[in-house]
């Protein structure tokens, strides 16, 4: 699931120049903005069948937080 999320984020945000780590703060990614948010939402729906609402998303900062939220919702 971890690798699936890394691949999903790289594809959604068009990150080509580096690898993603669980400790990365995705809000600091230069590719992250309101449109980036939409592509990530679409990716989460497609790959994990989860929907993270803005209020909840705003509480998450790292890629690890995102992974935990997906795991929580997938239970």
């Amino acid at each position, binding site marked *: 699931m971890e690798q699936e999320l890394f691949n999903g984020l790289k594809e959604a945000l068009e990150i080509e120049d580096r690898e993603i780590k669980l400790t990365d703060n995705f809000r600091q990614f230069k590719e992250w*903005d*309101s*449109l980036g*948010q*939409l*592509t990530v*939402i*679409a990716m989460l*729906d497609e790959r994990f069948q989860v*929907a*993270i*609402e*803005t209020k909840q*998303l705003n509480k998450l900062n790292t890629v690890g937080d995102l992974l935990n939220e997906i795991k929580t919702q997938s239970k």
Partner: protein
Amino acid sequence: MAYLKYSNVGISALSAAVPKRIIDNFTYTSFFSAETAKEISEKTGIKERRFVDDSTCASDLCFAAAEKLLVDVHVDRSEIDLLIFISQTPDFRMPATSIVLQDRLGLPKSAVAFDVNLGCSGFLYGMSITYSLMQQSNFRKALLLDGETRSRVYSAKDRQVAFLFGDGGVAALIEKDENFGESHFSLNSDGSRHSLIKINAGGYRMPSSCETVKEKVVDEYGNIRSEEHGYMDGGDVFNFLIREVPKDIDSILRTTGHTLADFDYFVFHQANAFMNGYLVKKLKLDSAKVPMSIEKFGNTSSVSIPLTIATQLRDKLKDRKRVFLSGFGVGLSWASAIVNFQDCQISDLVEV
């Protein structure tokens, strides 16, 4: 579910009007850098939009479209028994703009006229309401007008919305004819999400005041707007729509026994190219059957579906065509429709 079915009524003629002033998104850089403008334009698929000047209203665009239609198809105005105006940018808080238009268009005083306050789903609601009233045996012709001046709603200093919206107006002539066959509508609402796309001020919950017009920085990105401006939580709107729209499409198909292969065209609300690309992918549609006008006109709210038909399917609705329509957005309100077109007369685009 609110599922509605009508027989032998449809759109026999359609006309669209847009402001002549073109906004080039790539050079829309008064408040944002050229790099930001380029990036947003490319991702949303919106290259140009049309903006009205300060003295032009949605009703003026609809008036121009309606005049063109009435002349082009030689309609006897005394036969118009119903006039509906769909808009969230009316002329006044009262009276209803449709009634002002009854007089401007020289329609009979015996005509039924009223406004419908809905956004992106509005044209489908308007069609359904019109088809319903047209079941009256003495109703001859109806004019469905739909106009928006969203350029006057959103803050140019709020990057979430500054590059998306445009203005336009359409007029559709609706008549009875056996050639139209059956039409089907599914209409939906979710008021628990009413805050996702909203203008807070200017109604009676928050009347306009010196406070409501003050511009403020509203988020960590430095976006600026006032309570009089529209705002949109794009993320949550998208989260909701990518679930509910495909579900509603599936539901109307099952109810009517149709499959996606039965349609000549799919016309979706033009929110942004990304949303439509998502729907095409999710439903596995042939993109050649999904006309788009977002590149030229941006998101014109309720106008986007008929504007897409008028500009992209102009010569393609002569023979009988079965078309799937889907509108979704502010409310939240969303709708799906299955309609037939035959010999639909589409006027040249009017520039006001």
